[in-house]
């Protein structure tokens, strides 16, 4: 009995996910170019936010320097493609591999020397800033002038991952769907509950024979690889890459705002959070530009964060779930009472 109701709620969850992404696919077919380009960014940050979410929401490791991995992915794709004409598919894989290794080394070094928690988070900022400055002074990758993709020809080329804005919208949509489904699958797997266990109580997990050190390195590495894939596509979408924009603190904040606003450790949180925060960020940016008030977009981020922390401390998505259950449960219990009476 218990089992079947589990399966029913599972089916509901997956069904809801499929429905959301189906709606988004339709939106991509009918919307204006502006909406599509904005939603593309939202979906890319959903995917990158999901990778960040895996690391903090499930693995318990905070990063405020995910721009490092986003940048590595973006540069890997751009260097191979622009300088050597190699397909971005290879660049995405290579970027993910390099970011995975960099993440693993960073995690290994810090956890080996007992740099944990907020100190590890500070280290991630330092690493990202170090990389940003290094890339800015590195002529081979274009230095501060950055790298430019050739202007899009407008014809779709899946092998070279080139196309119009609608094409990139669907690439981002697929990535976001993979991110949401992947988080859901990982969080139900052996890794998922081991990671949540070590997040809850590291010592208790070790006492049960969990190799927490290895698992922490693993979760950082997987998260870094995910962020790099998102970064590779982000670079293609933007058409140009500069160290300050792709590896700056701003990117690190953009990555984490979705899951923080939407709901840490949840599968849908980053999507909802990015939907809420990023369009607002852009709208306020344009408004600020037209009013001559620079920085209005950052004020918007700050306001959203304060409101969420104040009213919905665990994010929007968990609040929606609670509301849904509050509406559903009384109805269900009435039905079960009726059934009992009939019996």
């Amino acid at each position: 009995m218990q089992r079947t109701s589990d399966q029913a709620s599972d089916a509901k969850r997956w069904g809801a996910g499929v429905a959301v992404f189906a709606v988004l696919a339709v939106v991509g077919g009918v919307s204006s170019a502006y909406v599509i380009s904005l939603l593309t960014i939202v979906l890319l940050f959903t995917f990158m936010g999901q990778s960040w979410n895996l690391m903090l929401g499930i693995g318990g490791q905070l990063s405020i320097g995910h721009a490092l991995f986003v940048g590595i992915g973006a540069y890997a794709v751009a260097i191979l493609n622009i300088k050597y004409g190699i397909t971005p598919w290879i660049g995405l894989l290579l970027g993910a591999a390099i970011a995975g290794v960099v993440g693993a080394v960073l995690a290994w070094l810090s956890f080996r020397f007992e740099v944990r928690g907020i100190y590890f988070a500070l280290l991630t900022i330092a690493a990202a800033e170090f990389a940003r400055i290094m890339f800015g002074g590195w002529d081979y990758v274009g230095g501060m002038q950055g790298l430019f993709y050739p202007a899009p020809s407008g014809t779709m080329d899946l092998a070279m991952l080139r196309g119009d804005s609608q094409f990139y919208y669907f690439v981002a949509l697929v990535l976001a769907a993979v991110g949401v489904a992947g988080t859901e699958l990982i969080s139900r797997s052996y890794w998922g509950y081991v990671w949540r266990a070590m997040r809850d109580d590291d010592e208790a997990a070790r006492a049960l024979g969990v190799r927490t050190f290895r698992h922490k390195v693993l979760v950082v590495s997987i998260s870094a690889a995910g962020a790099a894939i998102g970064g590779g596509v982000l670079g293609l979408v933007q058409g140009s890459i500069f160290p300050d924009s792709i590896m700056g603190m701003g990117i690190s904040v953009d990555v984490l705002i979705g899951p923080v606003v939407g709901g840490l450790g949840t599968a849908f949180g980053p999507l909802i959070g990015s939907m809420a925060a990023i369009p607002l960020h852009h709208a306020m940016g344009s408004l600020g530009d037209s009013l001559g008030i620079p920085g209005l977009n950052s004020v918007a981020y700050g306001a959203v964060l304060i409101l969420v922390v104040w009213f919905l401390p665990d994010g929007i998505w968990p609040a929606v779930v609670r509301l849904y259950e509050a509406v559903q449960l009384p109805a269900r219990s009435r039905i079960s009472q009726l059934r009992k009476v009939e019996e």
Partner: protein
Amino acid sequence: MPDDALLTIDDLCVAYDGSNALNGVSLHIGRGELICVVGANGAGKTSLIRSIAGIVPSSRGSVRMNGIEISRRPPWDICELGIAQVAEGRQIFGALSVEDNLLIGGSLKRAKQERAGTLDFVYQLFGRLRERRHQLAGTLSGGEQQMLAIGRAIMSKPEVVMFDEPSIGLSPALTDVMFGVVKSLNDQGITVLLVEQNVAKSLALSSRGYVLENGSVVLHGSSGELLENPDVQRAYLGM
């Protein structure tokens, strides 16, 4: 020292920041035995368990399991050799479901093959856990959490289970239930090291006992002898 000892601890020392928590403790547990280590707060009981489990490093001495030296090994190796612990304060993963808590306990190589069967066994032992298997462990009552901690240890198919004050924070009725569970596990062939402040009840359950004071064993003997000992009676039994 008897030849059939499963776990042999010799001259074990543990120091935190220079002060000794354990000061050369020696004890042994035979296969299938149920022994207890009693003592007041701060006597070093928890340090003993954490040190055997590899959670805190020892500064001197040896711990041998089936003749294998384990005192320098990491906790997962020690778990893999068949030593499980039920920690003081239970250390439940509150944000995980009851079943996920149990599955983590059963993730060791030695236990993974038979995990489904062991899970069934645990659910038979604690029907309450089966009822609540999808509930978050943090929402369980104190007694249920203690059952979960014990179930999680059983999931690792241990040869030895170390209990760190299983009666702490439980009502007298639940304490009796818990001691009954410890006894029944021992009856099924699991060797038990029981660490307790409840001296009368744990000595009644065990065959032998050690009295720990200030990080040293000050007395040991059969439980009957210890219960008769005037020092034990005065210090721990309030006679």
